[in-house]
């Protein structure tokens, strides 16, 4: 409880110094970006409210990192406007945009101590030494980096380095935090811990955060709002559960959720009025005796909490996710039945058919 009190005190200090200053809202208007002949971003419109945690997610090459770099000012957009807090920042240099960025490779200055890494931005902005020291103190306490302040990055573990990188962002007290796949270089256990830490920071700082990842689990667990990008366009924007429960396109349906949604050619199922039928693996029941579709078991994965069954049916492969432990023989026959009302229908353009 004592530690908790101290953290609260720190947050109080952080907030009181921030005053009632509005944290950053962000507006993106028709951003396009081309590298030579290649159009990477093909007209992006997006609005992010104060204090929101927004995650850009999509397969590699979808333009999510480019979009983040355009917001940061590290790349110039070919056309379109970026507004931070209502102010157009198209030609403002990165340091003056009120942003801080955390990079995938940490990007710590190798020849500077942790303290100097965190303080460089403030020193460069001409802040007094007392204030720099105070801010570093608060940030390092938040991230429990107090014991490492005099070390060089090379003397830290991967998780510690990423915490320093986050600390460097915090001391800038930015209006907008930008994260570029910050967890990709960490091992699985550390990734979960750091994810929780980032979620906690967001609650504490109440800051606007934009986060890029290709990992849909990170997106689902952290985001207030997920932006799914595909080939330089926004496919859908929504809360994690909106995306899970009502995907607007085949792409979103296939991208969100693990294992992937089963996407079946409608004609093979004998259904008309749709091109593709989608059913999530967890919305299918199986039985050894009777059911809607007959299939043979190709492979069974036992995950303890879940059992994943891969079936070969008349219309192609089908993945089924059952909760708990189940034993089925490979090559055995199983009947699968989709849950009523939990199938999705998509038209020729990949758009969902309502109703």
């Amino acid at each position, binding site marked *: 409880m004592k530690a908790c009190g101290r953290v609260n005190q720190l947050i109080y200090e952080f907030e009181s110094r921030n005053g009632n200053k509005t944290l950053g809202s962000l507006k993106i208007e028709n951003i396009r970006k081309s590298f030579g002949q290649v159009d990477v971003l093909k007209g992006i419109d997006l609005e992010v409210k104060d204090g929101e945690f927004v995650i850009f997610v999509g397969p590699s090459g979808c333009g999510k990192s480019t979009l983040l770099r355009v917001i940061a000012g*590290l790349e110039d957009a070919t056309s379109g406007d970026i507004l931070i807090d209502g102010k157009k920042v198209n030609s403002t240099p990165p340091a003056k945009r009120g942003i801080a960025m955390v*990079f995938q490779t940490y990007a710590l200055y190798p020849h500077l101590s942790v303290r100097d890494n965190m303080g460089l931005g403030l020193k460069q902005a001409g802040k007094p030494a007392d204030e720099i020291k105070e801010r570093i103190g608060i940030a390092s306490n938040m991230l429990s980096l107090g014991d490492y302040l005099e070390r060089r990055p090379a003397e830290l573990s991967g998780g510690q380095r990423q915490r320093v990188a986050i600390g460097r962002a915090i001391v800038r007290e930015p209006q907008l935090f930008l994260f570029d796949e910050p967890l990709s270089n960490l091992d699985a256990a550390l990734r979960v811990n750091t994810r929780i830490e980032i979620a906690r920071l967001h609650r504490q700082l109440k800051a606007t955060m934009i986060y890029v990842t290709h990992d849909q689990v990170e997106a689902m667990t952290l985001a207030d709002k997920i932006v799914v990008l595909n080939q330089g366009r926004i496919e859908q924007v929504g809360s994690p559960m909106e995306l899970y429960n009502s995907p607007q396109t085949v792409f979103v349906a296939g991208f969100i959720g693990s294992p992937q949604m089963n996407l079946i050619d409608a004609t093979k199922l004998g259904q008309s009025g749709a091109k593709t039928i989608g059913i999530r693996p967890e919305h299918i029941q199986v039985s050894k005796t009777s059911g809607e579709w007959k299939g043979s078991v190709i492979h069974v994965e036992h995950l303890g909490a879940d059992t994943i069954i891969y079936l070969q049916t008349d219309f192609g492969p089908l993945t089924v996710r059952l909760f708990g432990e189940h034993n089925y023989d490979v090559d055995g026959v199983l009947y699968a039945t989709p849950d009523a009302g939990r199938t999705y229908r998509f038209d020729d353009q990949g758009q969902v058919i309502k109703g």
Partner: protein
Amino acid sequence: MAKPTASPVRTGLVHLALIIYTLIALFPVFLTVINSFKDRSSIFRDPLGLPTPSTFSLIGYQTVLGQGDFVLYFQNSFIVTGVSIFFVLLFGAMAAFALSEYRFRGNTLMGLYLALGIMIPIRLGTVAILQGMVAAGLVNTLTALILVYTAQGLPLAVFILTEFMQTVSDDLKNAGRIDGLSEYSIFFRLVLPLVRPAMATVAVFTMIPIWNDLWFPLILAPSDATKTVTLGSQVFIGQFVTNWNAVLAALTLAIVPVLVLYLIFSRQLIRGITSGAVK
């Protein structure tokens, strides 16, 4: 590091080849050094023999150091080499940074153009350079030599450093930009410290030909006040009589600074040469 598959015979042969090469490369140096410590008659009588108490003599060194000009010649060599290296590294690194960091039209073409000098020896342009220096009134100044050597060293420097600059993480430079560092600060404070091994490599490769050069000092700055060590030691080589003691002593002395600098840079140098290969 020993690979279990390498047979001892194979490794032995590799070592033998390297040892033979080392001996061949070091033999002239060795010969110069031992003979510089012998008196004149024994240099001719027994050029391959080591100095013995009866043949040992410092007459060569006495002659060289007794001629007061030699300190000046050394000083000239130091100034010319040092300043040239400084400019080669500074301009080379800056050009390399621009080529590797910024996308602009004609980037590749510019890179090739700057690297062209590696293939075309600067001595082909001697006549034009001399005419230029005469017109600019720079003949018999150290500035003339510094200008020529800077031009001579730049192509290789740009070429090597561009490769190395590309290995510096983009994220790091972007982090600097977000922290408000100017492009110059990013270059001097983030990138340069990271390419230090490459800088040392370039420094050594640039230094040796400059220090040893006879051609340009002879043509551009042969006056007594601007002679370099290599040119200075030629005063002992006459048309009819050559003072071999003095020549060899001068050359031995001239080896020392190169050796010292090499020892200072060698750790960085080896890292620079291998870091590209074993990544």
